[in-house]
């Protein structure tokens, strides 16, 4: 790919990128969140068009133009997106054959399709063909996505953050699958920000930062430091975590159970948090973390009791949010924490309107000042607190949420679910510092994160969730990632 550029308004997602891949290799595209990796690959797959005609794409030295995925598929390119593109109620088989359905006399011939797929998949890639895609586990869904590519005879496979949803054990299986595919002559491009993956699995790596290529290396002989340098341009400073005195129990969760399709299940879960403690929850998404948050917020009806400051927690959301000083950083900021169509100052006032209303009327000026104060050290890129939140980048949006829930609210208990998702490294550091400051002031923090490194850096204790239970507990400050990974997949006998 040569001179690829893609601009969205004032944002240059890709800036004159030159990029090439050797056939039959596993090539990593690395970079932090927002570096432009997905955009580049979507251009290759025909989902997005590059800016101008100086952009060129060559496959096997032949110049090609991709206006839609159909063109890319015709060139034997396939892509698995970060958020799987599966039609839920359709069966696994149907999802795979979509677009190139084998037919017999005008009707779809599923028997024939199944034969083809069974031969293609073999043992390693077999999935339950007739189960609805939405009923499959995440690991199986990923197999499904890869089968889609193989069915359409892709020889170049693009995978976007494929291990984001896998446990450490599943990652190993996945790696061996990729190595097998490579040995069959396929070329694989992986988009990732995980250093470990790049250094152990891949042959070459291209690093992007802020839409530009900052380095193209062969993995042989590449050091971790050099890679980090290319990815973020500077050294990461190690987080200094002070030892804190734990206070009294703040939150006591005693044997709660919950079974709801939308948030997941909890099976007799118990957990305690003390003043000044950061408890990290590790676990593959969907093992009860969301259910726990829902219970704490009164959004799911559970059996059992939760005590807050020795008193039973109410089960009505409005009561909890208006009377108790909880902070909430939700994992899906766009739909759960923010009001995209409104201004920054309006967003900062969510949950604070009582403070600004007299006889029902809102004090707009007060809200603006409040927002400016809360965001004062956050370096949010915006034209002022009047700007609409939906036009801000993901990282800046997250900063607003954190500023509101941590700095403005000064809660005694903070629920932080994926607090740095989609945020660039500089901001991650800052947010972590804010969380630690909050802890030093005596607050308890429930930290849920899919980034094990984040959990290890911040938590006093790490608790592992599996199938709605608390199956293992580890104490800091040093953690054994292998053991945590084992527990995440249920490989631990719990008492």
């Amino acid at each position, binding site marked *: 790919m040569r001179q690829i550029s893609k601009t969205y308004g004032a944002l240059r997602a890709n800036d004159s990128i030159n990029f090439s891949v050797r056939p039959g290799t596993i090539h990593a595209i690395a970079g932090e969140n927002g570096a432009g990796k997905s955009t580049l690959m979507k251009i290759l797959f025909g989902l997005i068009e590059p800016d101008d005609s100086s952009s060129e794409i060559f496959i096997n030295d032949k110049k090609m133009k991709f206006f839609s*995925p*159909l063109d890319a598929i015709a060139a034997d390119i396939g*892509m698995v997106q970060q958020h799987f*593109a599966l039609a*839920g109620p*359709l069966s696994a088989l149907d999802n795979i054959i*979509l*677009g190139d359905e084998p037919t017999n006399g005008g*009707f*779809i011939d599923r028997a024939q399709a199944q034969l083809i797929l069974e031969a293609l998949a073999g043992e390693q890639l077999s999935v339950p063909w007739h189960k609805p895609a939405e009923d499959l586990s995440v690991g199986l869904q990923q197999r499904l996505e890869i089968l889609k590519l193989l069915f359409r005879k892709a020889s170049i496979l693009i995978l976007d953050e494929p291990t984001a949803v896998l446990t450490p054990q599943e990652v190993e299986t996945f790696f061996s699958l990729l190595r097998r595919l490579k040995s069959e002559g396929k070329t694989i491009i992986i988009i990732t920000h995980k250093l470990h993956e790049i250094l152990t699995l891949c042959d070459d790596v291209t690093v992007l930062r802020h839409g530009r290529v900052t380095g193209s290396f062969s993995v042989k002989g590449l050091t971790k430091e050099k890679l980090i340098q290319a990815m973020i341009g500077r050294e990461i400073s190690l987080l200094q975590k002070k030892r804190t005195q734990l206070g009294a129990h703040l939150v006591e969760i005693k044997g709660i159970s919950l079974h709801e399709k939308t948030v997941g299940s909890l099976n007799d879960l118990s957990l305690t948090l003390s003043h000044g403690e950061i408890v990290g929850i590790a676990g593959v998404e969907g093992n009860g973390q969301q259910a726990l948050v829902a219970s704490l917020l009164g959004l799911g009806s559970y059996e059992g009791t939760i005590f807050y400051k020795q008193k039973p927690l109410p089960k009505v959301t409005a009561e909890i949010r208006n009377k108790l000083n909880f902070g909430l950083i939700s994992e899906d900021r766009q739909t759960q924490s923010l009001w995209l169509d409104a201004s920054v100052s309006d967003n900062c006032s969510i949950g604070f309107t009582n403070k600004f209303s007299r006889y029902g009327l809102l004090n707009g000026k007060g809200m603006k000042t409040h927002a400016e104060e809360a965001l004062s050290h956050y370096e949010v890129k915006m034209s002022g607190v009047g700007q609409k939140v939906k036009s801000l980048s993901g990282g800046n949006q997250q900063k607003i949420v954190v500023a509101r829930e941590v700095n403005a609210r000064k809660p005694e208990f903070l629920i932080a679910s994926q607090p740095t998702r989609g945020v660039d490294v500089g901001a991650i550091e800052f947010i972590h510092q804010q969380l630690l400051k909050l802890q030093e002031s005596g607050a308890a923090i429930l930290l849920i994160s899919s980034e094990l490194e984040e959990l290890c850096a911040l938590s006093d204790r790490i608790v592992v969730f599996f199938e709605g239970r608390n199956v293992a507990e580890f104490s800091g400050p040093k953690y054994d990632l292998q053991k945590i990974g084992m527990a995440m997949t249920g490989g631990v006998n719990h008492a």
Partner: protein
Amino acid sequence: MIWFQEWILSGLRLSLPLIFAAYGGMLSERAGVSNIALEGYLLASAFAAAATMAVTHSLPLSFAMGVFGALMVGLVFCFFTIKARADQIITGMAVNLFVAGLLPVLSKAFFEVSGQTPSLPVNERIISVWPFAIAAIIVVICVAFYFSKTVLGLRVWAAGENPQALRTQGVSVDFTRFKSIMLGAAIASIGGIYLSIGAGSGYTRNMSAGRGYIALAALIFGRWKPWPTFLGCLLFGIADALQIQLQSVPLLPNDQPLPTQFVQALPYVVTLLFLAGFMGRARPPGAINQPTL
């Protein structure tokens, strides 16, 4: 007993336009496009068929024009929802408004009378209900197979649940939706044709009387699935028939029938009760009412 028979038969007849409208709507709703414009399809096809019949006296031509009328409406709807990415519900309402406003103007322009076409003599109508009933059964059976057995049907289903799944497999979601909407318009048009040159003697102003909306309610009742929707249409048709019967049945103490207005409201009340009672957890196609990104 005869009363009962008459009622049920009448109900079946009245459910015919609902079936065509509901199935027409199903095709587009399953593809992920909310289609409130069913009323517009019915009116347009009713008018086109009746007007053509009055002028040409030719049955095949009238039928074809009826279908064509609905297709034109469908085209407008497609342009604004698919190409121009307008909100589907607003576009649907606007299309209905457009058709309801345009037809009386056209009828005045062509036939001197605003709001209706010349009354058709008996030999220019399709008196027997059988052709339509058979057509309805064919539609119901075909659609039942359509979604799972045909290529287009499967793609339509996918477009409605997660358009991204289709797009990444190289299929144009917009084109798939376009085909569904047009096919749906054609099916719905049969309902309109039935109304004007089958059951009626020409087009009259607003003759569909909300049937397009009731068809949507039947669709929700049937959870967008073929057979349950069919059942829904039958039920609503029977409620409609009941309303007509009751207008002449002495039910009140002083041997008077129930007030006309109350009885006429019956189908709508039934629909409302249904929406209040059963609604709860019906799950519309996943991607409905979101324009393709």
